[in-house]
């Protein structure tokens, strides 16, 4: 395979386009050109409640076509959980009650369909910026100048809040004892996480999420179970965070960041962290995809160099295959497959 163009995984300053989409059709509350704050509600929809089916004829032991005679409710009527839907048997001693509160949505073939209460979904911007596109009836796209770090794995979900650094260096392992109430409502940044107690405490203390360089393999399932947003920037296992990434996050400690966990089924999104910037300082890397060139800072993504960071000394293309000679920080240059490299900056 040729030396293909690749996108960078780390931008000190770039333009982030963030799509916010409702799960179903709804109403948009902003227009193109509007400035929004992270907590601005940009769209709203009514989510249909789930349908519950109560087999009344079966419960009363009657023929399905005779149900109407025994019913105590009608289509469109609101019912409470435990309210009688139908009575039957001798002296009406057999009753069927509603298992949930809702509205009787239909009656068919001896069954009563109850639609649970609809609820309102409010979609917040989650990123301060400008609305640059609307997706009619579905959502909006917000644009902002930000620092951006693309991760290797994310546990899903999305959150916006201040970053708090919990490691001295990119190789430090997060300790559960360090996760305290001060983490509530914050995004914890650490070198790596190898202890389940860190995740448990972060979830219990309602931290918004975790950004780590490496995460022990068995903790991925734990993060998903706990519903905690975790972004892994470098790799699975005891992999340290790449130094340029750690430095960038450390620079932004205390600022608000947007955490996107990826894993969304509806939109193909990469796990990432975006930290909106107040003002543009220096060159803005819109960073189109491009092939690696000599001097590029790269991260190696396969054993035995997984997580190592270095600089491209040469790109070699032979017989349709591409390789790169990379000078690793603090050791001898190595030749690695082009596909095992990621651009940092």
């Amino acid at each position, binding site marked *: *395979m*040729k030396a*293909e*163009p690749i*996108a960078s995984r780390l931008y000190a300053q770039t333009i982030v386009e963030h799509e916010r989409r409702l799960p*179903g*059709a709804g109403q948009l509350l902003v227009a193109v050109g509007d400035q929004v704050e992270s907590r601005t509600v940009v769209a709203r929809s009514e989510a*249909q409640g*789930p*349908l*519950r*089916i*109560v*087999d009344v004829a*079966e419960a009363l032991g009657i023929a*399905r076509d005779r149900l109407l005679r025994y019913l105590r409710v009608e289509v469109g009527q609101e019912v409470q959980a435990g309210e009688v839907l139908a009575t039957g048997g001798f002296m009406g001693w057999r009753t069927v009650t509603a298992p949930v509160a809702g509205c009787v*949505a*239909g*009656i*068919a*073939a*001896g*069954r009563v*369909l109850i*639609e649970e209460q609809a609820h309102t979904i409010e979609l917040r911007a989650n990123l301060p910026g400008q609305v640059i596109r609307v997706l009619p009836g579905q959502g909006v796209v917000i644009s902002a100048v930000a620092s951006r770090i693309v991760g*290797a*794995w994310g546990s899903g979900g999305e959150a916006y809040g201040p970053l708090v650094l919990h490691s001295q260096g990119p190789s430090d392992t997060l300790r559960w004892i360090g996760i305290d109430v001060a983490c509530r409502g914050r995004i914890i940044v650490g070198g790596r996480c190898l202890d389940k107690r860190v995740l448990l405490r972060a979830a219990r203390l309602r931290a918004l999420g975790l950004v780590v360089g490496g995460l022990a*393999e068995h903790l*991925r399932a734990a993060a998903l179970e706990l519903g905690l947003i975790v972004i*892994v920037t470098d*790799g*699975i*296992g*005891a992999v340290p965070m790449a130094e340029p990434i750690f430095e960038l996050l450390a620079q932004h400690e205390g600022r608000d960041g947007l955490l996107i966990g990826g894993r969304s089924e509806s939109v*193909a*999104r*990469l796990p990432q962290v975006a930290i909106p910037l107040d003002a543009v300082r220096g060159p803005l890397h819109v960073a189109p*995809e491009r092939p690696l060139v000599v001097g590029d800072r790269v991260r190696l*993504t*396969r*054993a*035995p160099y*997984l997580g190592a960071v270095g600089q491209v000394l040469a790109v070699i293309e032979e017989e*349709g295959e591409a390789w790169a000679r990379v000078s690793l920080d603090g050791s001898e240059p190595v030749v*690695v*497959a082009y*596909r*095992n490299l990621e651009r940092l900056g």
Partner: protein
Amino acid sequence: MVEGSKGEAYLLVDVGHVLTHAAYVARVEGVARLVAVAEASTTRTAVEGGLLDGVRRATASLELLAGRQILDRLGEVRRPSDGDGHGVDGVVVTTSLAPLLRVALVGLTEDFSLASAVRAATLPCVSLERAISLGLAERWQAADIEALLQRPPDVLVLVGGADGGPVAPLREMGETLGTAYSLLPPERRPTVVFAGNDRAYKPVAAAFAGVVEVTAVANVRPAPHKENLGGLQAELARLFGGRLCRPAGLQQLAGWAGAVPRHDLDALARTLRFVARRHSLRRGLLGVDAGANSSRALWVRPEGAALTWAAPYGVGAGLGALRALGDPTAVVRWMCRPPSWAEVWDNLSNVEVRPGVVPETDEDWDLQQAAVREALGRTWAGAHAAWAGWPGEGAAAGEAEMIVARGTVFSHARTPAQAALMLLDALEPAGLVRLALDWANLLPGLSGLAALDPEAAVQVFDNDGLLELGTLVAPRGWLREGARALRLRLLVGGEERAQVEVRAGHLCRVPLGTNERGRLELYPARGLDVGLGRRGRGGAVEVRGGALGVIVDARGRPLRLPSGDEVRSAAFEAWQQEIDTP
């Protein structure tokens, strides 16, 4: 270009989850040949430019290799081909990215109509989400109906009853679902297909009136001992075809190619049926595809529908399914020099989250090949168990005359011998079986090419389609290690080429070149069956050669791996060496 006409050059594109493959086919002195193949990373997100960017990159690489311009300056396909050999006359696109048709089946009896419906829905393009029957209690469970409402399938298939049989249960189900679906917005309502008792169609259609159209097809079980799957299968295939291009990326690709993309497994099944007919493989042909996200198996015979099976085990993102099994030894047991299992799973997890990476060290190659064995072995075990319950053809699924493997792990294996050993370990084929690789990822595309230019498709298949590894001789049964398992004599053109004695627990190769044919005399030990009738029976058979000649696998069937780590590592290394050495 008009289908069936004769063009000069074609572009075949196969878009996978990780890699996009492109092949350039052109007529050379009147004969269609594969000129060049290239690959690029699949680009899926909008930031990466959608699928088309990856396809253009693969095509651009192809242009360099073939020395022909296929794209114009704007990146559009140049067509038709000109006198200088630039441009193409047709483009074929196959992909595994098309979302499968999510189907739910509702039937009366699990053993009759529902079983037939399950068989009909076992299609490459279908993901069977749910099969609901009346069950022992002879009533529909509210939870089953609720499940059909919370996550409505794309297609709801109602079956049940022999023609003229009971109507009430189907009408009752139809009334409940019809009422419930009327509460959903129209775009969430499923398509309803009725393939049951002809008397029940009208009441069922009436139950859904005003909510969704009900399409009637032939009853899948018109009588207790009669099955008719064709109507339902054709309808499901039609519905899948209609939805194939709904994702924006595939729509864009279809516009660029000027042709509707084909589902790769369906296309592969068509090509393999051609292979089965061309080589008169009456017992059938097994196709296996080890992909990044999943592995698939196909059982194809010259006549009849292909049986297909997909499992979530793969060698990229599909490694997650292997991890989810919770068996730490699952992949480790296939490794020559395993580090700790924790290290193995860390490495596999990193491949899972970055499926585009490639192995570089010996340990990494070892790990990748171990993962393939595990993924494919489990897929084949699932397929074999599912197909064994099928009347007729399913029972014979383990008796393939030929195995065709595809996937980057096979086409990029360091040697053909390594690819063969992965197949032997994962599938444990027995008897006399021909082994081949889809080395250029060409087979799905050939079925599309056959629609455009049948002659070109046949010529490319005959000349360049398969890398024949050779004929495998693998006796069933088991002897103690080192005992004499098999003696064989190979005659080529009436002259003796080789005479070999193979010990139990070992592998051996006898040279017989590609396109060479020979007469193989086999004399197995008493306890072993080489597929010539019964245990211990020998005989003479005509065999074809290949890159590896005749491969003898006397390790026994079923394959028993040594239990101790060191002994097992030594055995793996010995087997690798034996199959590497002619």
